[in-house]
């Protein structure tokens, strides 16, 4: 952590705020600023909407604009997110036209605005837009009174995830991880009169608290090993020059940090919370956790593990163990699940296994395939959860057996659900196939050990095809269950879901926002397959630049840092 008081005081003296902010690279944080402003606005405005419904305080502001904004927290959140997405897209142009090879260090080396963080934040924002679309009608139905707080907390959690994508300092990584974590505990327990929801929240809190303490202990030990620096960028340099007393602690520190990250990505020995939390949490929150939290934590894992590329041995063993265990546990326990949300939870664990496999080889191409896999996973998993949300709302149950014969009642819904599940299974046409193909291809040619692990992963994903197809078979082939028969009866007697939605009842499937969420996920799942080459190129460039930026810091290949447009790049601004 480097704070240069001189820069601040000179900016104060010269009254040159714009120059100061530009020099610190603050514009690269504009999406985060927009999100934070949006959530503050929602919190402040929610104070006025409370006065509207119950006993109104006398000094309440009676402006129609304020009350209109206060009752539209969803629109505010959506507007802020779309604006943030536009600013992130604007960052691409900066990268492509100005050739900022190594990216910017922002906020005194706390945050790295490189292509990796820009690309991952783009997909995070798109995923978050889908989560918002999914949650609109759900929130209006089940938690109408606390809607604005829900979106404020959701935005807080999401801002934490956005910061985590670019964190290159222990302090910023820990704080953003905890921002994401603590808000997630609240979101999971948001249905506070529902015992399942609060119980899931408690389990998440206890496991999460313990694992973040483990993570922190690992960071503290690394801080000592690195000779009193908290920056990830100095990790490769400092690994050799640390205190001798501590060097025995390095493997322990690594294991502890990976325990914290493994918890967030639900990798196998740290996966215990996943099925319970996924089942108990409100479904939009489950979708949020399975995608946003995972993507952000994986980007941090990439950043954290990369400096160890020179000391591969222990890292490879550790990550391979996590990967193999995750694939084994996820795929075998998923086979006997009867609840669809629990099934998707175990499938998430299995996917964490495939993704971790890519981290065993710290080469730019294999890391890029991991990134591509994560991007496709955003759409497939969000789509699957959107379908679960609609199905469980129609049938009032989440049991797979009760979904039997749904294809006869809702053919379009079942068709979409099937595409998402086939995508998760890695079937051709969908992006999931290309993601698995690229990942396994990158690993097969590396060395005999990774070849063996790819073979194991292929076996594991063959097993996974069984339980995904079993859900599709139940929905399409099996005789209609009682719940489906009741649904068909409703539709025939003209009280079906499309009409009920117009009447403002609890039906989700007629909602436009829900439909958009599914269409966006479907488009992503199919288009990412078609556009695999350009997106894969972006991932490759992002990872290549990340590795180049790391190499510039090493002593033997020290190059003069490139100054672009008078603004210092990260290599020179890490340690003034």
């Amino acid at each position: 952590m480097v704070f240069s008081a001189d820069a601040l005081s000179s900016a104060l003296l010269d009254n040159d705020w714009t120059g100061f902010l530009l020099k610190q690279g603050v514009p690269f944080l504009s999406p985060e600023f927009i999100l934070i402003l949006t959530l503050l606005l929602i919190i402040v405005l929610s104070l006025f909407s409370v006065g509207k419904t119950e006993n109104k305080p006398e000094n309440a502001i009676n402006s129609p604009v304020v009350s209109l904004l206060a009752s539209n927290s969803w629109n505010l959140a959506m507007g802020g997110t779309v604006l943030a997405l536009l600013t992130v897209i604007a960052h691409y142009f900066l990268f492509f036209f100005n050739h900022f090879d190594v990216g910017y260090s922002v906020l005194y080396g706390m945050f790295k605005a490189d292509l990796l963080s820009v690309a991952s934040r783009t997909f995070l924002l798109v995923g978050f837009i889908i989560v918002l679309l999914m949650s609109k009608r759900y929130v209006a139905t089940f938690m109408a009174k606390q809607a604005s707080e829900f979106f404020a907390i959701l935005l807080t959690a999401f801002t934490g995830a956005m910061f985590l994508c670019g964190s290159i300092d222990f302090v910023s990584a820990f704080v953003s991880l905890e921002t994401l974590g603590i808000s997630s505990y609240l979101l999971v327990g948001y249905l506070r009169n529902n015992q399942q929801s609060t119980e899931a929240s408690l389990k998440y809190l206890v496991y999460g608290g313990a694992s973040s303490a483990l993570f922190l202990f690992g960071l503290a030990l690394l801080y000592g090993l690195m000779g009193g620096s908290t920056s990830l960028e100095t990790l490769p340099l400092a690994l050799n020059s640390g205190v001798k007393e501590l060097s025995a602690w390095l493997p322990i520190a690594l294991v502890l940090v990976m325990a914290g990250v493994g918890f967030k990505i639900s990798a196998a020995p740290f996966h215990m919370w996943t099925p319970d939390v996924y089942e108990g949490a409100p479904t939009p929150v489950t979708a949020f956790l399975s995608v946003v939290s995972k993507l952000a934590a994986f980007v941090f894992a990439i950043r954290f593990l990369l400096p160890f590329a020179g000391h591969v041995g222990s890292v490879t063993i550790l990550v391979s163990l996590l990967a193999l265990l995750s694939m084994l546990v996820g795929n075998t326990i998923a086979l006997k699940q009867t609840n669809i949300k629990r099934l998707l939870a175990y499938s998430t664990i299995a996917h964490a296994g495939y993704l971790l496999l890519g981290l065993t080889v710290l080469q730019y191409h294999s890391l890029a395939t991991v990134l591509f896999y994560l991007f496709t996973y955003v759409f497939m998993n969000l789509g699957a959860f959107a379908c679960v949300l609609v199905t469980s709302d129609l049938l009032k149950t989440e049991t797979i057996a009760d979904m039997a014969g749904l294809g006869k009642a809702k053919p379009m819904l079942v068709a979409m659900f099937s595409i998402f599940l086939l995508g998760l299974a890695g079937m051709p046409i969908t992006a999931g196939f290309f993601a698995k193909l690229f990942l396994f291809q990158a690993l097969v040619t590396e060395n005999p050990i990774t070849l063996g692990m790819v073979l194991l992963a292929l076996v594991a994903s063959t097993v996974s095809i069984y339980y995904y197809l079993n859900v599709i078979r139940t929905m399409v082939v099996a005789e209609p269950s009682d719940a489906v028969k009741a649904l068909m009866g409703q539709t025939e007697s003209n009280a079906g879901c499309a009409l009920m939605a117009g009447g403002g009842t609890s039906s989700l499937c007629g909602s436009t926002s829900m439909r958009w969420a599914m269409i966006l996920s479907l488009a992503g799942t199919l288009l990412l397959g078609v556009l695999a080459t350009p997106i894969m190129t972006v991932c490759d460039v992002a990872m290549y630049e990340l590795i180049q930026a790391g190499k510039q810091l090493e002593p033997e290949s020290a190059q003069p840092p490139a100054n672009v447009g008078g603004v210092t790049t990260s290599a020179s601004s890490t340690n003034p």
Partner: protein
Amino acid sequence: MSVAVTPEIGLSTYLVLASILFGLGFMGVATGRHLMRTLMCVELMLNAVNLALVAINNTVNPGDLSGQVFAIFVLTVSAAEAAVGIAIVIALFKNTGSVDADAFKELKG
């Protein structure tokens, strides 16, 4: 401002103490039945790390305060975590009338 690390008490002493406290906290989280005790044990783990951070800071790089600043960040975060934790325990107590970890068996499988 800082804990004095005297020559007689080396860094490893502090680290061993921090590890013991951390281990006690972890044991408490793993075996504790009362939810409030579980939350307190999580706090104990975080504070054990704070001790380690401050001790490492004073031994390894006394001129730079980043370890101590980190510890202050950890304090803030752990306060937020405690507040959320107690809120969740209260919500759970309203639903079930119990704060015993064994009483919660809705979610299994």
